[in-house]
C-alpha cells in the first residue's frame, strides 16, 4: 500500500463490509502509482471488479495514473432529481396514470430508443457537448445546465477517442434507462431535516419528486472495455505492476492515459445527455397528465462513476469515484450559485421501495473524503443470491401492498433489486451525516417505480 485506507462505517455496516472483498480491493487500489493521501470506502461499499463500488482514490496528475476500472463500466452513471409543485393528494388518481405513461415514454431494459436515434455527426456533438447540444434540440434549458454537475459537459471530451464499437452501441440508446439497478422513481418528500436547504432545493414537505438513475449505457461499457484492454497491454511498458488486472492503468500524461480521459469525458457527456433526454420525456408526461404548469424542475444532477481533475492543497489530482458522489460544500466554486449557502445537493437512493435521501455537501468532505460521499444503499447480496431468496412476483406484491405502483418488464429484474439485497439506507445515510461528508436535508418516499 502506498497510502492508508479509510473506511466510513458503523459496526453493523462494518460487519457487512468485511464479509466480501471490499477491503481487499481497497488495499489493492492503494497500490496505484501516484495515489495520494488515502483511499476511501464509503459506508455503502461493496465488492466490484478490481475497484470496490463505493471507493474513492486520488492520483497526482503530475506523476500518477488513471484507471478505467476505477471509474467503472457505466461511466457517469448518476442520479438526477426533479421537483414539482404537486403533492400526492393533488395528483390523486392521476399519479398512477403518470407512472404508467412514464413506463411507456421512457424506454427501459436492454433495448434501444425508437424515438431518438443519432447519426454520427449528432452523436459526436453529444459526446463533445453533452447537455449543451440538447438545448439546441429543445430538450434542455439553460436553467437545467446550471444545476447539472459540470453543467452537463466536460470540455476535455474527445469523441475521436471513443471507438466505433462504442458509438455503434450508443447511437440509439440516448433517452433510455437500461437494466440492472437503473430506474425512474416518482416519490414525495416525506421528511425534512434541514428546512433552509430543503427550501433552497425546492423540496417542500409532501411535494412530488422524480428521481432518475442511469448512465452511459452500452457506449460507456464499451469505452471501459476498450481501455481496460489497452491499458492492460501497455502497463508493462510504464513499469506498472498491479495486484488486479482490472485496475489496469496508464500515466495520466501518457498518450493512453490522455486518450482514455478524453473518451471517458465524452462518455460522461453522453450520460448527462441521456438523463437530460429522459428528463424531457418526464416533463412531457407530467405536462400531459397534470398540465403544462407542472413540468418538473431539475434540482441537480450528480455523477457517481467518474474521474475528475480537482485541486486539493494546491495539487492537481485525478479523483476516481466509483460508486461515489461528489459532495462539495458552500465554499466550492463548483457548487451552483443558487445553492451556495447550503452546498451542492447530494442524492442517496435507497433500494427499490425504500426511502431515498437528499443531502447537502459539506466543506469538511474535502479533507475527509476528497469531497465525496456515498451513492446509494450498497448491495448486501449478489443479484444471483437475491433471485434465489425471493421472486419478482413476491417483490411486486410487497411493493403494491404499500401503495407503490411498479412497472418492470422483467420479473427476475425485480427480484435482483429486492430491498433485502441492499444495506439499510437509513444507517448508511446516518454514517455519512455523522462523519460530516454530507448533511441530511430531506427524505423521499417512493410512490411509483419504473425499473430498468
Amino acid at each position, binding site marked *: 500500500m502506498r497510502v492508508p485506507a479509510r473506511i466510513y462505517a458503523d459496526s453493523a455496516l462494518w460487519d457487512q463490509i468485511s464479509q466480501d472483498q471490499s477491503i481487499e480491493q481497497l488495499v489493492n487500489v492503494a497500490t496505484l502509482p501516484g495515489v495520494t493521501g488515502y483511499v476511501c470506502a464509503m459506508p455503502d461499499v461493496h465488492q*466490484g*471488479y*478490481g475497484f470496490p463500488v463505493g471507493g474513492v482514490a486520488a492520483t497526482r496528475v503530475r506523476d500518477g495514473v488513471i484507471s478505467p*476500472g476505477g471509474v467503472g*463500466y457505466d461511466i457517469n452513471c448518476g442520479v438526477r432529481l426533479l421537483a414539482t409543485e404537486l403533492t400526492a393528494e393533488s395528483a390523486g388518481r392521476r399519479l398512477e396514470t403518470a407512472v404508467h405513461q412514464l413506463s411507456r415514454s421512457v424506454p427501459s*431494459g*436492454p*433495448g*434501444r430508443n425508437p424515438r431518438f436515434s443519432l447519426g454520427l455527426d449528432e452523436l459526436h456533438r453529444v459526446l463533445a457537448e453533452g447537455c449543451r447540444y440538447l438545448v439546441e434540440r429543445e430538450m434542455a434549458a439553460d436553467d437545467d445546465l446550471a444545476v447539472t454537475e459540470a453543467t452537463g459537459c466536460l470540455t476535455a471530451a474527445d469523441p475521436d477517442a471513443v471507438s466505433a*464499437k462504442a458509438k*455503434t*452501441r450508443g447511437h440509439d440508446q440516448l433517452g433510455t434507462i437500461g*437494466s*440492472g439497478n437503473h430506474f425512474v422513481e416518482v416519490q414525495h418528500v416525506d421528511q425534512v431535516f434541514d428546512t433552509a436547504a430543503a427550501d433552497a432545493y425546492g423540496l417542500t414537505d409532501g411535494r412530488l419528486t422524480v428521481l432518475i438513475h442511469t448512465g452511459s449505457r*452500452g457506449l460507456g*461499457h*464499451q469505452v*471501459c*472495455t476498450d481501455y*481496460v*484492454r489497452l491499458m*492492460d*497491454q501497455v502497463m508493462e511498458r510504464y513499469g506498472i505492476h498491479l495486484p*488486479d*488486472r*482490472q485496475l*489496469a492503468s496508464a500515466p495520466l500524461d501518457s498518450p493512453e492515459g490522455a486518450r482514455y480521459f478524453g473518451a471517458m469525458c465524452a462518455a460522461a457527456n453522453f450520460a448527462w445527455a441521456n438523463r437530460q433526454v429522459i428528463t424531457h420525456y418526464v416533463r412531457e408526461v407530467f405536462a400531459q397528465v397534470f398540465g403544462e404548469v407542472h413540468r418538473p424542475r431539475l434540482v441537480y444532477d450528480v455523477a457517481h462513476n467518474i474521474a475528475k481533475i480537482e485541486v486539493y492543497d494546491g495539487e492537481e489530482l485525478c479523483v476516481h469515484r466509483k460508486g461515489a458522489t461528489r459532495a462539495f460544500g458552500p465554499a466550492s466554486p463548483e457548487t451552483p450559485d443558487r445553492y451556495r449557502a447550503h452546498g451542492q445537493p447530494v442524492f442517496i437512493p435507497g433500494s427499490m421501495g425504500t426511502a431515498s435521501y437528499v443531502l447537502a455537501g459539506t466543506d469538511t468532505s474535502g479533507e475527509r473524503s476528497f469531497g465525496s460521499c456515498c451513492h446509494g444503499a450498497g448491495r448486501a447480496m449478489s*443479484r444471483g443470491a437475491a433471485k434465489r431468496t425471493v421472486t419478482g412476483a413476491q417483490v411486486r406484491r410487497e411493493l403494491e401492498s404499500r401503495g407503490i405502483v411498479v412497472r418492470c418488464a*422483467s420479473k427476475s*429484474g425485480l427480484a435482483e433489486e429486492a430491498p433485502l439485497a441492499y444495506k439499510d439506507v437509513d444507517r448508511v445515510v446516518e454514517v455519512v451525516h455523522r462523519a460530516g461528508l454530507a448533511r441530511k436535508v430531506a427524505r423521499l418516499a417512493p410512490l411509483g417505480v419504473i425499473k430498468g
Partner: protein
Amino acid sequence: MIYGASMTDVVGEAGRALASLTLGEPLPEATGPWREIELYSPDAVALLVDWLNELIYLAESEQWMPVEFDPIEVTHTYLHARMRGRALGTSPSLVKAATHHGARLEEVDGGLEAHLLLDV
C-alpha cells in the same frame, strides 16, 4: 468457470456458456451463414476476456448471438474462429462485459480450467 481439454475447447465452451446465459438451455440451432472472427491478445487470459467481449458486442450491436463455434486456430495469444448464431430480436440484458477481475486459466488434470467474471 469453464473447462476444456485444450485452449481450443475452452474458447468454444466459453462462447457456448455466454450463449446459454442469454438464450437459455438447450441452445437453439444456429441459422444463417458462418462468420469469422480474429483476435490478438497479450496472453491466454486476456484472449478469453477479449473473446467474450467481442461476442457481447455482437449481441448488443447486432442483436445476434453466436451459438455454434468452429475454432480454426487458437493459440494463447491468437484466435481465429468461425461461428454461426441466432438473431435475438432485441438486445440481451444479462451480460454487459467480461472483466479481468479474478480472471485466470489453470492447468488441471487433463485440461484447462478458466475462471471468468462477467459484469451483469
